């Protein structure tokens, strides 16, 4: 431990011993947020993420925490339970970070979160070499996402390491950056301060969190009909709230109606479903053909055609594709429970 003390001090003053472990505290966060994350990871876009193969227990323990094992100074897995909330923002950095990465390429802020390897001082090559095993464990443990990204990051500018170091000292996310020799083996998540913004670790974390929230709100925007043109969180939230309320009211109203109406004792479920799905399917086919398992963005054309007040017609247009993308992102618990029953086994794209 003593010999490795240098590397131990990533900007987090982290207890190095567990650095490997703590770094790994990132389960595949593609699964941590199935609703929004995409299953097709663009390696250039994806951020961080450890395969749970090496550290299955930790991955399981902290499903919500993906990106920043070094977030807390305790540095051990035990640190995570203490701050699930703060880690969660980074837990979805793939979803959010993906966009960050995109923006980063424009030279703007670095939403990219790079999990730096151990040790920072360039002079500590020896130490780095010594600890390299541990560091390499991590990249191997990690998914393939960030490898290319890390490589290009570290090879691009050694001089930025200093800046990174500065940032690191201020942000808990960053592990060490300066070993360019370690670069190919590391997956890094850099959280760089944007121009003109505070590099305070708190504000950075806050910003990431906020960006994550904005990301989710954008996805919600695509869900809620008629919100495509709305900009601004407050209005958007209003719309969402109203929509949810109206949906709930509708359900209540329908259930009241149901209670007053005598259900026939011979409700044909299959017939019901056929009628049901037929309606939704017909309206969906134009868009479904495009992208059956697309993310929500892919279903935008669906939504924008409908207006907000017409909730009755709306759901039928958006549900199929959206919900299936939802499920496809990792949820599908028992997709085929009812398959034996259904007469409609070819719902979505029969014409394909």
């Amino acid at each position, binding site marked *: 431990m003593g010999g490795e003390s240098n590397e131990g001090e990533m900007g987090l003053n982290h207890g190095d011993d567990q650095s490997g472990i703590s770094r790994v505290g990132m389960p595949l966060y593609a699964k941590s947020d199935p609703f929004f994350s995409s299953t097709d990871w663009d390696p250039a876009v994806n951020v961080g993420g450890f395969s749970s193969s090496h550290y299955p227990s930790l991955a399981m323990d902290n499903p919500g925490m993906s990106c920043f094992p070094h977030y807390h100074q305790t540095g051990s897995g035990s640190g995570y339970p203490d701050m699930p909330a703060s880690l969660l923002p980074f837990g979805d950095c793939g979803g959010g970070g993906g966009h960050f990465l995109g923006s980063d390429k424009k030279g703007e802020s670095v939403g990219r979160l790079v999990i730096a390897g151990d040790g920072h001082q360039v002079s500590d090559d020896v130490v780095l070499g010594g600890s390299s095993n541990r560091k390499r464990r991590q990249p191997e443990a990690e998914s393939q996402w960030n490898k290319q990204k890390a490589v290009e990051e570290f090879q691009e500018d050694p001089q930025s390491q200093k800046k990174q170091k500065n940032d690191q000292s201020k942000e808990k996310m960053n592990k060490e950056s300066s070993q360019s020799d370690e670069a190919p083996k590391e997956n890094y998540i850099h959280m760089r301060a944007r121009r003109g913004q505070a590099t305070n670790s708190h504000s950075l974390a806050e910003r990431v969190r906020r960006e994550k*929230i904005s990301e989710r709100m954008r996805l919600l925007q695509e869900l809620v009909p008629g919100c495509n043109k709305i900009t601004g969180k407050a209005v958007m939230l209003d719309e969402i709230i109203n929509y949810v309320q109206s949906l709930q009211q509708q359900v209540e109203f329908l259930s009241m109606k149901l209670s007053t109406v005598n*259900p026939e004792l011979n409700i044909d479920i299959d017939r019901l479903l056929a009628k049901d799905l037929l309606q939704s399917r017909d309206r969906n086919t134009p868009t479904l053909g495009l992208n059956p398992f697309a993310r929500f963005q892919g279903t935008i054309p669906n939504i924008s055609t409908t207006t907000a007040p017409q909730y009755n017609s709306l759901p039928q247009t958006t549900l*199929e594709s959206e919900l299936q993308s939802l499920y496809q992102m990792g949820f599908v618990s028992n997709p085929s429970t*009812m398959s034996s029953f259904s007469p409609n086994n070819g719902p979505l794209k*029969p014409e394909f």
Partner: protein
Amino acid sequence: MERQIINKKKRVFSVEPNKIPPSEVFTRKYTRLLVPALKKLNMNKNSSQANQLTVKHEVDMALALSAQEFAWSRFLLQKLSSSNNPTTTTSSSSNGIRIQKRSGKEGGDEDGEIEEKLRELQKLLPGGEEMNVEEMLGEIGNYIKCLELQTIALKSIVEDTT
């Protein structure tokens, strides 16, 4: 209609033949849960008030059971099982009023306003208050979808019986 059903049987999924789209899964689960429950309810006709409540209860229960992949469904189940009286999932008018009030604030309050609204949203979601904001936003998305599906299903049930 029978013809249509038979024709549909011949169709296959183009992309993933073995998977049923989740919305369909949900809808099927939902109707299959709800309709028998309703039939059972129908056997004992109580007063209309009690009937309404129980129907609502069944409706919510079917929703929760059909969407067990999501966190909010667990909370909903808890609520339902903890009380015989169905908890309404609507909290309509009061929230609406509050929202309008909030929108009057400007400027420096904006963030606070947003926080308020997020909290509103949390209240709408079953179990939303126990989640943090990011998680809640994710859950709201699939909650909305399931609600939409539920309304479709309910509508078709109602239409079927009228």
